[in-house]
């Protein structure tokens, strides 16, 4: 079980989701992917992505203008 950080700061929509989906390709069930983004679209987009791929959003927080979304990979 790994903790994978996807740094998509400065990338505009749909960049962060694309980076997330790339990380997902190599992730295993039980891994946590943490996406860092500055594009505000990521909050809703990550939820839509998790819904679509049947994975779980654990937390969405904002620190110094950076949105951090933690997603637990439960489905492959």
């Amino acid at each position, binding site marked *: 079980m790994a903790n994978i950080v996807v740094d998509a700061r*400065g*990338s*505009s*929509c*749909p*960049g962060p*989701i*694309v980076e*997330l*989906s790339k990380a997902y390709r190599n992730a295993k069930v039980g891994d946590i992917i943490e996406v860092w983004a500055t594009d505000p679209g990521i909050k809703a*987009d990550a939820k*839509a*992505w998790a819904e*679509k*791929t049947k994975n779980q959003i654990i937390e969405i927080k904002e620190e110094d203008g950076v949105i951090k979304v933690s997603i637990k990979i439960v489905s492959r």
Partner: protein
Amino acid sequence: MPKKKSKLSIVMFSGTADKFLPLGILSQAAAAMGFEVNIFVTGWALLGFTKNAKEPPFPNEFKDMAPALMNGLKKMNAKPWQEMLREAKEMGAKVYVCSTMAGVMNIKREDLNELVDDIVGAATFLEMAEGGETFFI
């Protein structure tokens, strides 16, 4: 029973820069969401898929706003549409050129750039698109 895979089909008709941008964004986003993505290139859009294609022009009515838009895109680190489409293709998106339009413009397979997967007819595209979402850009 597993749910059928979601599908986005795009008829890319327009040949102007402002329309190529949503093509890149939507195909990349859909591919990242795990959608099957099929793009059917026809009309003026075909000119954006030839070898040595020039950057598509802005439509006349928005020409004055083009520099501000380009500037804004740069500031947001938005990638050029070709790069977004390339990334979408890496995630499985396919680009098909309309055989009739290619014939009308006298464009052959070897005249098309590396973004194009194949030349197909309208019936093939409609068959691919059936049962999914279809956009006309």
